[in-house]
């Protein structure tokens, strides 16, 4: 089979080289000569001073029209934000659907059957001879009899106690200020979903289960999606287009539009969705440090010690 594999390798490299060369040449030619948005003919200072004073008679693309109409028809300063939520709100709706679908799919894949506390409840079909190692979660403050010194992650808990409100405030600051500064719903939602990791590192799986409930997070994520759809449909019921700004106040200092409501809905949607995803993955992991040594029997302990840690280095070759 030496010749067959060699022919296959040559085919692979030739096809990759073709992709590289044709792609680079095509992209360079397209960006050099094809009509794209050349913003050097836009007077942005003039647009800011008189928002209605623009001319789209000989526009060179959709981006030209969007940049010129941004100050008059939307109440946001961030053009990318207004493209995402105002001019192309339908695409954002589809993206929210993808997020909901991915999280529902992961929930279905990583579902536990049976005992929640056992470490092997993720779909193993082979029965085991010995019970899994009894793990004791010491991070929730569980006490253990005996004279063994137990570690308590004081540093992690203190830092998490201090950092948790700052993380949430920072994440929601980015969500709510998406119209005036770089940011928006998605970015702020992912940042504020880091609280799950803080709680897990400090308080263990027990603390995580006490604080969050993944089913409730998934339901509230769906409610945020429905809120987005309702705000978008309010324009259709009023006789205009989908995602129409039925609230529009642009006084110069006070700016408000209904796309900001959609932005907040997407921010909550992403935050709840990513929290739910991380909780599901961490519950599938389901190991807690600090397994007690005296509660195992001798056989299980010897079995556990026989698996050398060096055999599990996890290189690519030993799969």
């Amino acid at each position, binding site marked *: 089979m030496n010749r067959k594999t060699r022919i296959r390798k040559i085919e692979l490299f030739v096809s990759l080289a073709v992709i590289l060369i044709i792609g680079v040449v095509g992209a360079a030619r397209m960006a050099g000569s094809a009509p794209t*948005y050349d*913003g050097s003919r836009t007077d942005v200072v003039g647009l800011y001073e008189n928002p209605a004073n623009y001319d789209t008679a000989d526009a060179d693309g959709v981006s030209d029209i969007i940049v010129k109409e941004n100050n008059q028809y939307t109440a946001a300063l961030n053009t990318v934000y207004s493209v995402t939520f105002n001019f192309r709100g339908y695409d954002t709706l589809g993206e929210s659907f993808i997020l909901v679908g991915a999280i529902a799919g992961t929930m279905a894949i990583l579902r536990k059957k049976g005992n929640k506390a056992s470490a092997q409840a993720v779909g193993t079909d082979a029965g085991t001879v010995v019970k899994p190692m009894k793990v004791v979660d010491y991070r929730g403050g569980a006490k253990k009899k005996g004279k063994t010194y137990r570690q308590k992650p004081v540093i992690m808990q203190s830092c998490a106690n201090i950092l948790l409100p700052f993380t949430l405030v920072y994440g929601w600051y980015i969500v709510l200020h998406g119209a005036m500064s*770089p940011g928006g719903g998605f970015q702020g939602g992912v940042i504020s979903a880091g609280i799950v990791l803080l709680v897990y590192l400090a308080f263990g799986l027990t603390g995580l289960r006490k604080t969050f409930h993944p089913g409730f997070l998934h339901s509230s994520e769906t409610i945020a999606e429905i809120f987005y759809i309702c705000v978008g449909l309010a324009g259709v019921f009023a006789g205009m287009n989908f995602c129409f700004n039925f609230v529009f106040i642009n006084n110069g200092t006070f700016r408000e539009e209904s796309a900001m409501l959609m932005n907040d809905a997407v921010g909550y949607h992403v935050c709840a969705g990513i929290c739910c995803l991380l909780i599901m993955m961490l519950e599938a992991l389901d190991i807690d440090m600090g397994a007690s040594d005296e509660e195992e029997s001798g056989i299980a302990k010897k079995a556990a010690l026989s698996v050398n840690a060096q055999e599990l280095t996890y290189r690519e070759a030993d799969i």
Partner: protein
Amino acid sequence: MILENFVASFFLIALGLYCMATKKNLIKILIGMGLCDYGANLLIVSVGFNPGGTAPIFTISELSRDSFFVDPVPQALTLTSIVIGACTTAMVLGLVIRIKAKYGTLDSTKIRKLRG
């Protein structure tokens, strides 16, 4: 129009395709998919760049009469693409966990035997 950005993005796409086609470990195949995502996003944002343009946010204190914007539409499309890449990665990693628990191995040539 920056030539090294285009070369790098197509090189990343080709590298990701090579990784997906040749490697046997499932996690390496996933890493190849992630590299394809990075290359495609870099290409989209690089196409919409104009030398001398600023970010499309109207902070009037920094602008002058000569300044103009870069293209805002490819940036909005790239945001969607990034979120889709993250969702796909999360879902396939859940699948990888289940495959390892069921088949005991992550070798893509060994898990092809469909067992009832």
